[in-house]
């Protein structure tokens, strides 16, 4: 990038701002938030995204599906961003939403204890094996059996994300250290799903 003004030249990190903006634009990123997550942050993120969608006249069913998936993803982060150990506080959670073609991508990343990785992987894989009717049955059964957990979850988030998005949940785990992994989740909502499914 060519420097036009150099009043900020003392801080070389300032080029990062323009680079980040270009990167977000190139990847059609609508919104990114990184750091501490709370219900207040969740509400703000939802509000900002909704305003943007209203301006874009997005189909109301698609908008609600995106909103639903966002709620589950954001509240998952709120509930699970700190587990038992504090060593990973320097690797905060991240949330982003962007588009690729007709698809809206809702992405989260958060650290978690590595001992929980297998359980999460298994739960998502089970959800990903089901088709629309299978997910419906799974949701019904899981809701009947559900108990609200200590952190306020019903254990239905992944099933609901898959149902509302109409796509498999993509995920990966990266090792941060011996005890801690980074969990990245991607849910894709297609905006051209008016085929009545």
């Amino acid at each position: 990038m060519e420097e036009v003004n150099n009043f900020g030249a003392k801080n070389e990190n300032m080029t990062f701002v323009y680079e980040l903006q270009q990167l977000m634009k190139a990847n059609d990123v609508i919104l990114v938030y990184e750091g501490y997550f709370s219900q207040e942050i969740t509400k703000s993120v939802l509000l900002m995204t909704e305003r943007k969608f209203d301006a874009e006249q997005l189909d109301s069913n698609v908008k609600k599906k995106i909103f639903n998936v966002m709620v589950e993803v954001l509240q998952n982060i709120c509930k699970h961003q700190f587990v038992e150990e504090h060593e990973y506080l320097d690797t905060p959670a991240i949330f982003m939403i962007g588009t690729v073609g007709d698809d809206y991508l809702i992405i989260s990343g958060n650290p978690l204890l590595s001992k929980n990785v297998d359980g999460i992987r298994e739960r998502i894989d089970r959800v990903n094996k089901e088709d629309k009717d299978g997910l419906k049955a799974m949701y019904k059964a899981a809701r009947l059996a559900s108990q609200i957990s200590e952190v306020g979850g019903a254990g239905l988030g992944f099933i609901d994300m898959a149902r509302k998005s109409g796509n498999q949940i993509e995920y990966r785990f990266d090792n941060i250290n011996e005890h801690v992994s980074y969990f990245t989740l991607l849910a894709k909502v297609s905006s051209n799903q008016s085929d009545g499914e």
Partner: protein
Amino acid sequence: MDVLVIAGTEDTPQVVLDAANAKFEMSGRSLPEDVTSFYKPVFEWLAKVDGISKMDFHIKLEYFNTASSKILLDIFSKLEGLKENGVDVTIVWNYSSDDEDMQEAGEEYSELVEVPFKLVPFD
């Protein structure tokens, strides 16, 4: 009976449980962080129901999160109990006529709950 009124917010529904005016309704959005504490007064009110012969319980939600979905099922179970105790209970599930997911959610509850269940679209 006590009247329970909770004003709606951007993440919690408006709740009106008012026997004298025969108004039983939850409307708006339900995505509280802590569903258990938000809905506690609703369950307390339901536990004290007395002298009500007919109850049309209206749900008119725009969005709800999965934890609220579980809580709704628990509320409907309580209404089932009231019906067994002789209250003429009907659950009225109001949904925006263009909202497929909210319609489907209502249908799913109606299959699970042993209480007369009306699905009512609105424009």
